[in-house]
């Protein structure tokens, strides 16, 4: 017992050290831009850089569209699977897990070859089409997380009973989804949305291979050419990720508790 606790502390402290030292080092490095004193100069330079602002805005917009696409794709599907097609469940779950197995670089490689300018569906021949393909690629990346978040949300609220109750009261499908199901899984959907945001905002591979002016390629470019700004950007990116995750944590407190389980 006693020695167990000792080792638990050792493990915890070593782990904490491994995870905090890089953060501290990066913070320190990012403040070294002015010789001989600590300053936030690197942050000032980065935040004032118009390319930063443009690429960041681009990625935020892409993330928003990704979230919309993801919600439209996942919520009705997960709902329908729970309600009417449980036999399809293993297939759909398998598909949603595929993006964890097939690397993003392979997926985007496939896009480039399948949707080039002389293909039947020439996404890549226009800027808008390429942007759409970027959003689609992001939605694919986020699919496993979005699906699991929504499906867990649906599991806790007993979809079938809610739907039947709404039907007895004479509600149609649009009403059922928008007024009954969505509000109840809103927390789950929002969690999925913020996770999607965290994944997408600094994504490099797809954006770079589709030549989009996104935040990820911008980061990479700064990394190759500057010394102190990358550290500042790393801290900014960490704070963004932290923010998204904290929102998810806070949201989870408002999630409806399972109706089936006691306690």
């Amino acid at each position: 017992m006693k020695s167990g606790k000792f080792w638990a502390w050792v493990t915890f402290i070593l782990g904490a050290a491994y995870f905090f030292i890089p953060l501290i080092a990066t913070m320190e490095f990012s403040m070294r831009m002015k010789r001989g004193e600590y300053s936030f100069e690197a942050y000032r330079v980065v935040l004032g850089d118009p390319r930063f602002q443009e690429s960041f805005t681009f990625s935020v917009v892409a993330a928003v569209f990704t979230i919309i696409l993801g919600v439209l794709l996942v919520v009705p599907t997960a709902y329908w699977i729970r309600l009417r097609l449980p036999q399809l469940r293993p297939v759909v779950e398998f598909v949603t897990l595929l993006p964890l197995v097939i690397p993003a670089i392979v997926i985007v490689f496939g896009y480039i070859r399948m949707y080039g300018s002389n293909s039947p569906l020439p996404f890549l021949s226009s800027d808008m089409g390429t942007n759409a393909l970027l959003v689609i690629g992001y939605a694919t990346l986020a699919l496993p997380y979005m699906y699991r978040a929504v499906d867990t949300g649906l599991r806790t609220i007993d979809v079938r009973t809610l739907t039947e109750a709404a039907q007895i009261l004479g509600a149609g499908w649009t009403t059922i989804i928008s007024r009954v199901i969505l509000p109840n899984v809103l927390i789950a959907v929002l969690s999925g949305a913020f996770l999607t945001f965290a994944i997408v905002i600094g994504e490099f591979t797809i954006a770079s291979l589709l030549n989009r002016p996104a935040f990820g390629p911008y980061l990479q470019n700064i990394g190759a050419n500057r010394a102190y700004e990358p550290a500042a950007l790393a801290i900014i990116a960490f704070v963004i990720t932290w923010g998204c995750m904290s929102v998810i944590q806070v949201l989870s407190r408002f999630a409806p508790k399972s109706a089936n389980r006691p306690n």
Partner: protein
Amino acid sequence: MTDISLSGPAAAGKTLPPAQASAMRLPTQWLGVAPFIIFALMFLILPTLYLILGAFQNVDGAFTLENIVELAQPTIRAAYWISIKVSVASSLLGAFIGLAIAIAIVRGGLPNWTRSATLTFSGVASQFAGVPLAFAFLATLGRLGLVTVLLRSVGVDLYQYGFNVLSFWGLTLTYLYFQIPLMVVIITPAIDGIRKEWGEAAATLGATQWQYWRMVVIPVIWPSFLGTVILLFANSFGAIATAYALTGSSLNIVPIVLYAQIRGDVLHNANLGYAIAFGMIFITGLANIFYIWFRTRSERWLK
């Protein structure tokens, strides 16, 4: 499911309220998932199949194994080898360290805040990958990084000892930054699932702590553990951004070779590019098939 399709056409003409719609099967039932299926086919499955097929074709579209054979050329083979090494090392190390941390916070008798702090932080760190992570490690262990500088000031020159953040170990150490937390996040619920009473029952039956672990705890968490190791493996095997930002193209892992190929056909053979992509899917797919096989074989006790 043939009987289902029979009743379909007969009922398809009528418009029914949702409650009765369940009586008619195939067409309307499946419409509900049609958007998803179409999306998955168009943007996930077909693009992948396209590459896989391409890997077995020559420039004229005829079947060939040449591209696969070509994978054995030294640069590509070396790339696969280093990718596999980094992925195996970072997934195994990440898995064991993550497991140790999870056990420490769940079962170690630490105060409650350590658990919530670790889980919150792990949630963040498991998603903190890509280019910024490379920056953080350069700032830490690069030639001018804080740790490098501090160690040098006490007379330990990491780079003199052959360490380089732009190397196998450097990359592995960096990947652990998201691998360990990912393990913690996934395995903690599995450890929570180990009931306190099991240990107590085992103790009253005379078992030592080690016997209890060997006969109950390890077999119980093993499936989740192995599944997560496979996930961690795939996670690092396909990752490119961190490595690219960290090492440029000085460390030729497979995704970086493929990236260069997509950008500029550096191999001067488009179909060889497909073969490299196929090889990546093959390896992560193989890992998953092994996992599924293992699970169905040995986990009869899982519902």
